[in-house]
């Protein structure tokens, strides 16, 4: 793209931009930044601006950014637009002051509702505005939070009108959904645009997150607190965001069943036993927190968490019940409450709202129905507004209008009227051109270490694909974008952690029992997938190299196929080689097929989102290689490609995973599965009657052909093969080698005993090593192999009993055990 086209890009946009557009309406200094930024982006998009969008989207995908819409099975790719919104320091400081003021007001209102209720008694706030909220929990009354901080974070959706005035569309205190996406958007954009952001003096986000973490810690009872991010689990719409934030902030990502309340204190189950938890950043509604105190139907909460809150000494952010002030009906009262409680008007007003529970307001809404939107006051389904939380009054036909007015007459408190907002636009790349799209910003404030409110200098910008963009974070067809706050002078560089450096530590925190469980089974499934691939390769390979390998009808081949069937990769052994291998490779209905196993790997990996590198996801998400069941070469090729991928996963684990307990459990999973498979294979193909074919296949399956040839000049013979595969301490495929690694891992894992006695897994592992150590290949019997296998299964059970949650097993056991 030459410089003329570059200018054209911005100029063409300006020529057609609607009034109030963020770029077109920018003051001269900001307009300069816009032009410079667009010129830079255009340079980067050498031929076609569309490539720019792809480039940013690829960065977002690499970061593992994804989300779900309600009803989605799979996560969707994150639609991140390449053009950030630019806001100058002066305009931002107005927004910042407005947000801080609102946070202070909301804090005081929530505190009043759950303590003295003076606002209600004095008639400043109708009781039925409080009780109408599904997030109001009376049981939290007189249960104050640590340091009386009901709120640690507050988020708002704000919109900018055509005259540049900002208004709050909705207040959010239940979960700060979007804050992690804002951070990820920033990372993706800065990766994709080099030094553009710092060249523009963009304010950094990192200090905000460091302060947010300090703010959470400040209200915990201990000075170096253990804080968990409580997630509803991997099916939640923003699970990816939660996992990223947990990792970024160094919080323990926990689900309800990781936690337990004992004697009114909260603990996390770890491989080192129960460990005290000082605080929770909850990403689930109060309703689900404790089935014994809130909604008895919750299966994702922690029994007696309420008691831990009531007893004191536990930080929960935001405090249960805080969500009461989120209802739209509240918007009608915040202006008066600001005057009454703060003695000032709201700097950032919300859109004008009339709650119909009051006679005068209801009459106003009825009279001006055509100029307003009508919505549910408490975000609940209400009569007369079918399928929609919000409807412009003017859009109703005669019948609908009568129905709505009738319903409103019976239950006026269920409705609000709101002014219709007109949103200003910002440039976005659509089909390779810049086009104006209406936008809203989700902005965030949080308490810092001293309890003061700080705003994140940035936002999650949502660009409307179509329709009303007030409801959720992202709707179908919407795009997100970064928002940059531009300073007049260079922003001092700031390390990610900012401020006071934390105490140096060399391992991550405590390993939760469930994470250990998942890592172990992740290892086992990956290893099982590899062995299944080797079986497929032996079967498919054997059929073409008839002279060199066993023929299809040979007893060796029959046993290979039987093993595939036993592992659930194929239904039976009747089929011809091609279809058989195709099924074992790619038929996801077969629980033991490679495709199904890799699906389980991805599933378990989801639950470990905060612990696995993005490279893991890249490998796991690669499309399954193509193959044709009728063409053996394609089966071999696909199997080899998959083995390469699994080797890459092993490489990641070997080279990139910190050597903490998490890595040990992952490695133990692989060792355990490999050792059990080794026993199974040796008993099938290395028995006393083993043929040459059998031994050749055995060496292949256990990937030890080369090792054998470097040691022996002759063809395969039983004692040396058995020694190499079962007992040799130098062969990383041998059973004894796996046993030694298992014993090493277990020896350094934490123990719960204070009396110096070995725990069960240690006894099992050491006994297994000792059992194999004195043997040599010529004295080894099949009974020894059977004994080793049963010892391995015993060890696996002992590991499960000692380290993992026993409440519910993972999706593990039935296929592999």
């Amino acid at each position, binding site marked *: 793209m030459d410089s003329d086209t570059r200018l054209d890009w911005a100029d063409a946009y300006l020529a057609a931009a609607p009034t109030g557009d963020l770029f077109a309406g920018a003051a001269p200094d900001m307009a300069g930044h816009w032009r410079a930024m667009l010129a830079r982006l255009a340079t980067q998009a050498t031929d076609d601006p569309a490539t720019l969008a792809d480039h940013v989207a690829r960065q977002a995908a690499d970061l593992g950014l994804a989300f779900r819409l309600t009803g989605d099975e799979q996560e969707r790719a994150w639609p991140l637009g390449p053009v950030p919104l630019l806001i100058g320091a002066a305009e931002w400081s107005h927004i910042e002051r407005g947000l801080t003021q609102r946070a202070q007001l909301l804090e005081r209102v929530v505190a009043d509702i759950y303590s003295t209720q003076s606002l209600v008694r004095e008639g400043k706030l*109708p*009781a*039925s505005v*409080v009780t109408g909220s599904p997030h109001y929990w*009376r049981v939290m009354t007189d249960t104050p939070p640590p340091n009386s901080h009901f709120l640690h974070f507050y988020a708002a959706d704000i919109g900018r009108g055509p005259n540049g005035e900002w208004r709050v569309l909705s207040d959010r205190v239940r979960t700060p959904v979007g804050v992690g996406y804002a951070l990820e958007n920033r990372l993706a954009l800065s990766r994709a645009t080099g030094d553009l952001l710092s060249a523009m003096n963009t304010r950094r986000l990192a200090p905000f997150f460091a302060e947010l973490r300090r703010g959470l810690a400040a209200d915990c009872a201990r000075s170096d607190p253990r804080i968990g991010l409580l997630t509803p689990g991997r099916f939640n719409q923003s699970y990816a965001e939660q996992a990223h934030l947990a990792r970024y902030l160094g919080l323990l990502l926990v689900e309800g069943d990781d936690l337990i309340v004992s004697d009114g204190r909260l603990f996390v189950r770890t491989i080192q036993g129960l460990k005290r938890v000082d605080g929770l950043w909850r990403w689930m509604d109060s309703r689900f927190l404790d*089935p*014994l*105190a809130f909604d*008895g139907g919750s299966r994702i909460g922690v029994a007696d968490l309420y008691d831990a809150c009531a007893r004191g000494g536990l930080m929960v952010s935001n405090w249960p019940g805080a969500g009461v002030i989120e209802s739209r009906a509240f918007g009608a009262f915040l202006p008066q409450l600001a005057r009454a409680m703060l003695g000032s008007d709201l700097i950032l007003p919300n859109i004008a709202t009339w709650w119909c529970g009051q006679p005068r307001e209801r009459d106003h809404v009825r009279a001006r129905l055509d100029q307003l939107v009508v919505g549910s006051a408490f975000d609940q389904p209400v*009569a007369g507004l079918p399928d929609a939380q919000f409807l412009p009054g003017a859009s109703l036909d005669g019948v609908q209008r009568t129905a709505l007015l009738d319903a409103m007459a019976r239950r006026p408190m269920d409705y609000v009227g709101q002014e219709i907002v007109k949103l200003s636009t910002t440039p976005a790349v659509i089909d390779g051109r810049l086009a104006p799209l209406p936008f809203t910003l989700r902005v965030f404030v949080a308490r810092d270490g001293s309890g003061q409110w700080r705003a994140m200098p940035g936002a999650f910008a949502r660009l409307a694909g179509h329709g009303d963009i007030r409801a959720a974070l992202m709707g179908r067809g919407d795009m997100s974008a970064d928002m940059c706050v531009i300073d007049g002078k260079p922003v001092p560089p700031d390390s990610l952690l900012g401020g006071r450096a934390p105490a140096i530590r060399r391992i991550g925190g405590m390993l939760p029992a469930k994470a250990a469980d998942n890592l172990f089974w992740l290892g086992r499934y990956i290893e099982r997938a590899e062995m299944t691939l080797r079986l497929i390769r032996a079967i498919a390979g054997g059929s073409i190299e008839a002279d060199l390998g066993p023929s299809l009808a040979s007893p060796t081949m029959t046993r290979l196929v039987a093993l595939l069937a036993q592992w659930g990769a194929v239904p039976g052994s009747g089929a011809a080689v091609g279809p058989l291998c195709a099924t074992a490779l790619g038929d996801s209905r077969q629980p033991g097929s490679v495709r199904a196993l890799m699906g389980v790997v991805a599933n378990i990996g989801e639950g470990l989102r905060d612990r696995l590198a993005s490279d893991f996801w890249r490998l796991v998400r690669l499309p399954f290689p193509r193959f044709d069941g009728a063409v053996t070469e394609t089966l071999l090729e696909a199997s080899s490609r998959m083995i390469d991928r699994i080797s890459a996963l092993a490489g990641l684990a070997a080279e990139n995973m910190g050597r903490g307990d998490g890595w040990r459990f992952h490695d133990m999973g692989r060792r355990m599965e490999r050792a059990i498979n080794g026993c199974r294979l040796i008993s099938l193909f290395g028995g006393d009657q083993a043929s040459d074919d059998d031994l050749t296949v055995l060496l292949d399956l256990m990937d030890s052909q080369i090792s054998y040839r470097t040691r022996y000049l002759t063809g395969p013979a039983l004692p040396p093969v058995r020694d190499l595969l079962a007992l040799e301490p130098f062969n990383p495929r041998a059973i004894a080698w796996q046993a030694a690694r298992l014993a090493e891992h277990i020896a350094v894992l934490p123990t719960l005993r204070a009396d110096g006695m070995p725990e069960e897994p240690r006894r099992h592992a050491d006994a297994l090593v000792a059992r194999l150590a004195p043997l040599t290949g010529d004295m080894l019997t099949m009974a020894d192999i059977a004994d080793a296998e049963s010892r391995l299964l015993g060890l696996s059970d002992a590991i499960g009993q000692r380290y993992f949650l026993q409440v519910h097993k993972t999706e593990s056991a039935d296929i592999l055990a």
Partner: protein
Amino acid sequence: MIYHVRHRTILHYATPVRLARFNLRLKPAPWPGQWTSDFALDVDPTPTIVESRPGGWPVNVARLVIESPIRRLTIESRFRAGVQGGTIAPQADDPAIGAVARAALLDRDVGPAAPAQYLYASARTPMLAPIGQWVGQGLDPDRPIVAAALALALRIRAEFAYQPGVTDAETPVADAFAARHGVCQDFAHMMVVALRLAGLPAAYVSGYLRTLPPPGMPRLVGADAMHAWVMLWCGPTRGWIGFDPTNGCITGDGHVFVAMGRDYADVAPMDGLFVGGAGQSLSVMVDVAPEEEPALS
């Protein structure tokens, strides 16, 4: 009337429950016109923790934990209760429904028994349009509230079949309404929904009925287990009045109040977490007997 109330529940499990954490809501909460004394709770096997906690509503909650494996759980509560006599009936100067609905929105109280707490839909009492259609003009704003609510209770008794066993504690009110049958819990939920659809504060009440009627009176339906009825706020002057849609009456001195909430979930006699324990079977025995008055010598 003074009653001796005894309520025993026995649970059997085919496979043992390894850990039980549960709530019991069996001790009557204070309520105007009723006193309670000598409450006793026996649980076998003996639980590790028994403590009371606030329930948020006019409810007494006891928290229990049993940490040893159990196959059988017996819970028995006993108490004495005095219920004020006197019959409540519609009066000529009762407020109109519309006036009560407006007064409820103006009320400045968010306490446990404040009308504002009972105005809105809850999980088990969704605002079902078919119930509103069925009520028709029955709760129009100009009707006197007590008479209209009594008429509604009578209509529920007349048009819905009382059939124990066709519904259970988890049956949605919509299903019971559509099938035109159920037990006290279903009827109470239906009536609560109908009243709230008219903008009125209506609550769900759990309690007991006198087991054997006074001589010459018919036996009330629902006396062999815990009973449920409806509390309706009838304006600042008349306050809360109980209506029993199962028996089509205003509650009287045969009804012993235990707890009040927005729906069954708030007052469920027992709920909680039972780890393990498949194949549960349940037997319940309730006895509500008038205290023998000492014979005059």
